[in-house]
């Protein structure tokens, strides 16, 4: 058995090649029974197929054990032979492999998790642990968990393998449909974020799709993980020819896609259903001896359920109502182990805007552990959203975190070294984000005391290597018990300024007081103004939620999710490129308003909303371009109706001398024009003197310079120097593939715009005199 670190070192050196399909190879040789049975019945055939892959150039051979787990074998009455099947499989692979790696192969059980099916986390865990134990005893170099379609089952398998061995290389793979979702709704981003926390070495995708369809799904995964990456596409989607299932992609057709996977950062490449030793032989030739490319992970702070990822890049409402404190009926239902009531509470809150649900089981010693585990496992599947596990007892918390299908919030830990260490330990093992409550043995009253707790917490978290997986809660105390809300607000600001996320148990403030809604709402607004990132609150409180929505808009912090742009007819018309309808709308408006008002009050704000939708990922670049293209003739027509003094500020744009790339520049020009500016587009490969003279003549609000290549960005400096030499103080905005904010500054530019909508935003700021 090779050490985990040895396999990792090999993967840092070069991209390895995995073998191909086994089932079809057995069939070719006339064996159509359960493949795992062949390990006992015809081990020579298993050996022969392994050899064919070794001779084709595979670096890694998988054992013939995809279905060799107790639950799966039981379906064929073979569970009693598990031990012999697995041992024989590893021995055959090892015998055939020469010095190649042997990975133990484990597939899913085929049983859906409760409540979609009947399987519990523990069922899955025990099932995989048994096979993994035998594999490790037989000395596999790694274990690959492949074709999993459910997050919880895969998590159980990972934990089971790790409990067997901390030193075996472990790969966790899921299978996705053409829409990029697994059977139980997980997308590759959720997969990456959830499993980044767990102790696995590599993540991957296999089966269901051909290489072409798998590319975007793989790329999404690769952008969000630092772990090694494995991919095994099928040889296309199966078709039926003469009554037989055939996978249509020939080795040549398949190989064309290898470069794309390589460029996306693959570390192990192989084939799934329909691939043959001929495929692997050609893959070997095309892949050659390549060093893996380095990837950079896009970091995002998020929690997940099987089908939803909630990023904390906007204000997040954590529903507080699954908490029996002060709710006698709910408490009774919990004691009766009623799951329906929890589901109803959850659904109502999600419908009213909760993105995460806090789950608190009251007096934990009185609640059945099995019930807690069932609720924690099933609620995310039924309601869809991630949970905040508000569990204090360490043992119960471990049970809950273990069976949770995703990356939860864990609410919470006080700032005490032992408690933090234990709770971080649990999250390192099971995954998740920790809410750190800024209190210890004493409950702080003042900002200074809370600040001290924060510093202490950060020191401990740094030692534990966990400071990037926490949210801080300053601790809200009831007003009636000397709560001092202003001290809490100061703490929120302090934490936010330090770059950390915050949350509050909002309703604590008004505990025991009348008019709770108003107190809570007012406090929430004040806390938002200090930078609060989330709150554990009651989403059924309409006044609170409406106040929250309004405050977010007033503070320029965007909207709560689920607020669709409905009824914004003009934006819909613009984005869909319906020029005729837009013309009609503008004609009607011109009957009531003057042309300048139509521009300033209707069209320009509409395009700003379109830009915002693009920034938020609600529309795509082609839609932004089409929107700009649609609005342009309308602006032209309105400009004709305006006196020259009111035709909008000029904006000069050019691609610098020596550069002939102008697509990006054209798009920026078009979008800026569609926001009501008079764009003077000088084109590409423009002499510095022409640019400067145009600026002198047009006196624009700003000058836009585009440069794509490293050899041409230096021309920006030339333009800036010439402008300054002539005492022209026009702000210079630059953009292009080789540029970034730092380089732009070094070149003397005033602004760097990474895309068209950012350029519009800069112009708006300039116009507003900011």
């Amino acid at each position, binding site marked *: 058995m090779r050490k985990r670190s040895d396999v990792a070192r090999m993967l840092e050196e070069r991209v390895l090649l995995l073998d191909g399909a086994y089932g079809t190879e057995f069939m070719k040789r006339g064996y159509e029974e359960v493949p795992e049975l062949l390990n006992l019945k015809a081990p020579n055939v298993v050996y022969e197929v392994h050899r064919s892959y070794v001779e084709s150039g595979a670096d890694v051979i998988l054992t013939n054990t995809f279905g060799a787990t107790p639950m799966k074998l039981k379906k064929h009455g073979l569970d009693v032979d598990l031990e012999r099947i697995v041992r024989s499989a590893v021995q055959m692979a090892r015998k055939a492999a020469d010095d190649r790696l042997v990975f133990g192969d484990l597939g899913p059980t085929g049983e859906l998790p409760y409540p979609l099916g009947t399987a519990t986390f523990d069922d899955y865990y025990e099932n995989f642990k048994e096979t993994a134990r035998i594999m490790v005893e037989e000395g596999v170099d790694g274990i690959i968990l492949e074709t999993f379609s459910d997050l919880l089952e895969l998590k159980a398998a990972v934990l089971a393998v790790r409990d067997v061995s901390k030193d075996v290389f472990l790969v966790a793979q899921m299978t996705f449909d053409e*829409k990029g979702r697994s059977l139980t709704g997980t997308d590759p981003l959720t997969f990456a974020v959830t499993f980044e926390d767990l102790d696995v070495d590599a993540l991957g995708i296999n089966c269901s799709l051909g290489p072409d369809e798998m590319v975007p799904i793989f790329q999404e995964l690769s952008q969000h993980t630092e772990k090694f990456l494995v991919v095994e596409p099928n040889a296309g989607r199966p078709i039926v020819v003469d009554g037989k299932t055939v996978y249509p992609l020939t080795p040549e057709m398949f190989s064309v896609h290898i470069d794309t996977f390589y460029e996306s950062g693959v570390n192990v490449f192989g084939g799934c259903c329909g691939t043959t030793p001929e495929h692997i032989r050609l893959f070997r030739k095309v892949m050659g001896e390549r060093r893996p490319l380095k990837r950079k992970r896009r970091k995002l702070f998020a929690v997940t359920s099987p089908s939803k990822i909630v990023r904390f890049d906007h204000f997040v409402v954590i529903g507080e109502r699954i908490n029996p404190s002060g709710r006698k009926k709910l408490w009774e239902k919990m004691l009766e182990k009623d799951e329906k009531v929890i589901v109803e509470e959850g659904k109502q809150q999600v419908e009213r805007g909760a993105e995460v649900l806090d789950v608190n089981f009251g007096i934990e010693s009185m609640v059945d552990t099995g019930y807690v585990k069932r609720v924690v496992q099933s609620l995310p599947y039924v309601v869809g959203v991630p949970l905040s596990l508000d569990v204090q007892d360490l043992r119960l918390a471990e049970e809950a975190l273990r069976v949770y299908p995703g990356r939860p919030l864990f609410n919470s830990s006080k700032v005490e070294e032992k408690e933090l260490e234990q709770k971080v330990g649990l999250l390192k093992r099971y995954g998740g984000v920790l809410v750190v409550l800024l209190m210890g043995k004493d409950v702080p009253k003042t900002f200074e005391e809370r600040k001290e707790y924060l510093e202490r917490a950060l020191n401990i978290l740094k030692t534990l290597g966990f400071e990037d997986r926490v949210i801080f809660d300053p601790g809200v105390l009831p007003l009636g018990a000397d709560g001092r809300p202003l001290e809490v607000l100061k703490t929120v600001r302090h934490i936010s300024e330090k770059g950390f996320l915050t949350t509050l148990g909002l309703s604590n403030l008004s505990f025991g007081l009348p008019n709770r809604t108003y107190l809570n709402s007012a406090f929430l607004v004040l806390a938002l103004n200090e930078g609060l990132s989330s709150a554990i609150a009651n989403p059924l409180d309409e006044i609170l939620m409406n106040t929250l929505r309004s405050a977010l808009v007033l503070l320029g912090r965007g909207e709560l999710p689920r607020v669709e742009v409905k009824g914004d007819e003009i934006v819909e018309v613009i984005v869909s490129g319906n020029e005729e309808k837009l013309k009609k709308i503008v004609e009607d408006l011109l009957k009531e308003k003057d042309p300048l008002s139509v521009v300033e009050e209707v069209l320009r704000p509409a395009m700003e909303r379109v830009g915002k939708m693009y920034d938020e990922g609600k529309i795509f670049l082609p839609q932004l371009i089409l929107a700009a293209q649609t609005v342009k003739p309308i602006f032209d027509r309105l400009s004709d109706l305006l006196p020259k003094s009111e035709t909008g500020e000029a904006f000069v744009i050019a691609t610098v001398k020596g550069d002939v790339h102008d697509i990006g520049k054209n798009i920026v020009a078009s979008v800026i024009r569609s926001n009501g500016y008079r764009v003077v587009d000088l084109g590409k490969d423009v002499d510095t003197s022409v640019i400067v003279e145009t600026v002198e003549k047009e006196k624009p609000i700003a000058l836009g310079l585009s440069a794509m290549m490293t050899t041409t960005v230096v021309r920006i400096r030339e333009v800036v120097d010439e402008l300054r030499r002539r005492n022209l103080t026009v702000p210079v905005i630059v953009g292009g593939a080789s540029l970034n904010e730092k380089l732009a500054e070094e070149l003397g530019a005033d602004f760097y715009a990474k895309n068209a909508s950012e350029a519009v935003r800069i112009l708006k700021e300039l116009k507003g005199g900011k």
Partner: protein
Amino acid sequence: MSKVELDPREIEIPKNVLKARLGFGRVREIPPAFEKYVREAYEELLEVATPVVLWEDFEAKSEGGKISFDGLELSGKLVEAHLLGSKLVTVFLATLGEGVDEKIEEHFARGEDLMGFFLDGIASEMVEYALRRVDATLRIQRPHLLGGFKVSPGYVDLPLELNERIVKMFEGQVDVRVVQGSYVLVPRKTITAFLGWRERDAKEI
């Protein structure tokens, strides 16, 4: 020196690659409202593109962190990672020809920005896949050699100036030039690359 003129209809661009290039990376399908534009742009490209791929092999020698062939001496991070130690280096140039640039410019000049953008994006992938096609064929035809990763001037620390040398290498075979000072290739849908080959070990054959 070898040269192949390809029928643009034979260059297969994977659907998903195209989708991502055209700005629809985060949706599973190109929205129906845009399919018409994409189809039109693709058809126009097929009319005007004249894909040509040229390549030449050179015996190479590696010494002191540098690789030399045909009077060229290359070094740096990219060379170290992907070319150093190669016995043979293939130099590639692929282009779609002048007509594509003209068509893109026509669209932008007429205010048809979306068509211009789509045509540009599809053409960028087409020239890439024209080169990949030849690359894959070479790898299949050379069973005793292992090809590394193709590297192009302008990426990481491989100087863009090399474009001038590559264009000179294929002078007279295809109408491609380099912009003085910036080393940008014209026609714009032109790419260049180096690919290193090493002998396969006996057990790898």
